[in-house]
């Protein structure tokens, strides 16, 4: 367990190696959130890198509290900005298109030889991933922070810079849409996830 407060204090004094220890501790969660928001490994990689650079430059504005939430807010805001930029100037990655055509993740029979239980689980993950990607950005981020990262409503509100009421609303709408989307997969999902039964 790292002594977070000491490392932050040293980083605020300009100790980059202390900051790097914080980076190593949080880089997976930051990358995960970026990936769920951006839906693209390369974009998530860029977003995570930018977030850590921005966080170091602004570390003196951190006044205590939850450092992880502070980092997640930075990466979330960075992803929002990037998504807004993309909407203004739509562009498609050639690699992404090729990958989608040649090996659509959901249809690929990656675990043909695996036991039934494992295969069902993989199908569920693919279905959830696909449904999650169809959600509006704000609802997807709220759902990821709540269900993937296990953050509380108050923390999500701070990360997304919105009120708790807005967080409640976004999570509720996200789950309703996910439920409706997953119902479309029917028999492909394990029994407990066949929501229309």
């Amino acid at each position, binding site marked *: 367990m790292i002594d977070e407060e000491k490392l932050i204090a040293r*980083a*605020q004094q*300009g100790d*980059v*190696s202390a*900051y*790097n220890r914080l*980076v*190593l501790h949080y*880089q*997976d969660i*930051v*990358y*995960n959130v970026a990936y*769920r928001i951006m839906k693209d*490994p390369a974009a998530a*990689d860029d977003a*995570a*890198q930018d977030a*850590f650079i*921005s*966080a*170091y*430059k*602004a*570390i*003196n*504005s951190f006044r205590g509290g939850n450092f992880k939430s502070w980092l997640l*807010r*930075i990466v979330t*805001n960075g992803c929002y900005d990037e998504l807004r930029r993309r909407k203004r100037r739509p562009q498609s990655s050639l690699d992404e298109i090729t990958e989608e055509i040649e090996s659509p993740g959901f249809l690929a029979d990656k675990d043909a030889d695996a036991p039934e239980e494992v295969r069902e*689980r993989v199908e*569920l*993950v693919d279905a*959830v*991933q696909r449904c*999650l990607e169809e959600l509006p950005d704000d609802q997807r981020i709220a*759902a*990821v922070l*709540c*269900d*993937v990262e*296990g953050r*509380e*409503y108050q923390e999500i509100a701070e990360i997304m810079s919105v*009120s*708790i*009421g*807005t967080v*409640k*609303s976004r*999570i*509720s709408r996200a*789950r309703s849409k*996910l*439920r409706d989307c*997953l119902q479309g997969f029917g028999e492909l999902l394990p029994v*407990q*996830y066949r*929501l229309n039964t």
Partner: protein
Amino acid sequence: MLDILRSLTRTAEEKRQEELNAYLDGELQGRAREQFEARLAVDPALRAELAQLRAVKQGVAQLPRLRAPRNYTLDPAAYGRPAAARGASLYPALRLATVLTAFLLVLAFGLEIVPGTQTAGDTAEQPVALVETATEEVAVEDAAETTLMEAPAAPAPEEAEEPTARTAADEEVAVEGEADMAGEAEITANATLTEETTLMAAPELEMAQEEAAEEESFDATEMPAGEAGAPPAPEATVVAEDAVAVATPPLAPTPTPEPADVATREGVGLEPLRVVQALLGVAFVILLTATLLVRRQRI
């Protein structure tokens, strides 16, 4: 604020769904939680719905945890000491100042609506007010003229009663003095004349009286119907007419307010308010811009 608006606009179904999800996430506390559990105990449909949402939540939670493809550590040689966060500490103060300025700005514009405050709309009514004022001035001038026209008659009997007490010059001074009670322009000159007359030494006064008598006799020769005691009358009338003439131009068919007059009237209540509104408007724009800039830099 937005939460209040949101709670007013969302439907009963939306509220029910939010409550269901909040319960699922362990965010429903106290009495609300107890009430929900009581409903859950007696409502199978609600339990089924909760089970569906729980399955969704678990499905999302099963998404694989990805590892970062590389380390995001910074190169100590490339990054020095992080900048001091002055802007971030300014943000709350800037935000408060912006809100206060916005409030004052609304208040400043709201003052225009309050009855009794002179505004741009009121200036349109000024000509009417000026007409009324001008009418009053006319009445005063008329009264002055009336007094003036009666003035010659008054000295005559006095003169008859005191034939040796006053010279013609004295009469002229007296008549003019009375006439100019209404004519403001003449007051100073006449007062000076009266003073001069009063302050003169006795011999000088006599000389002046003699000179005045000579002038009077000279004037009398030029007068068509020469009445020695009457000369002041026409002169006083001329003076009175002049006074009326001075007062008349602004009263012409549609009295036009003098620019200086309007400026003075507007300056009483309108100008300070306009200045305050302009200053507050400028301050609001500056503060809002600064707040947005600091907010953008703030993380």
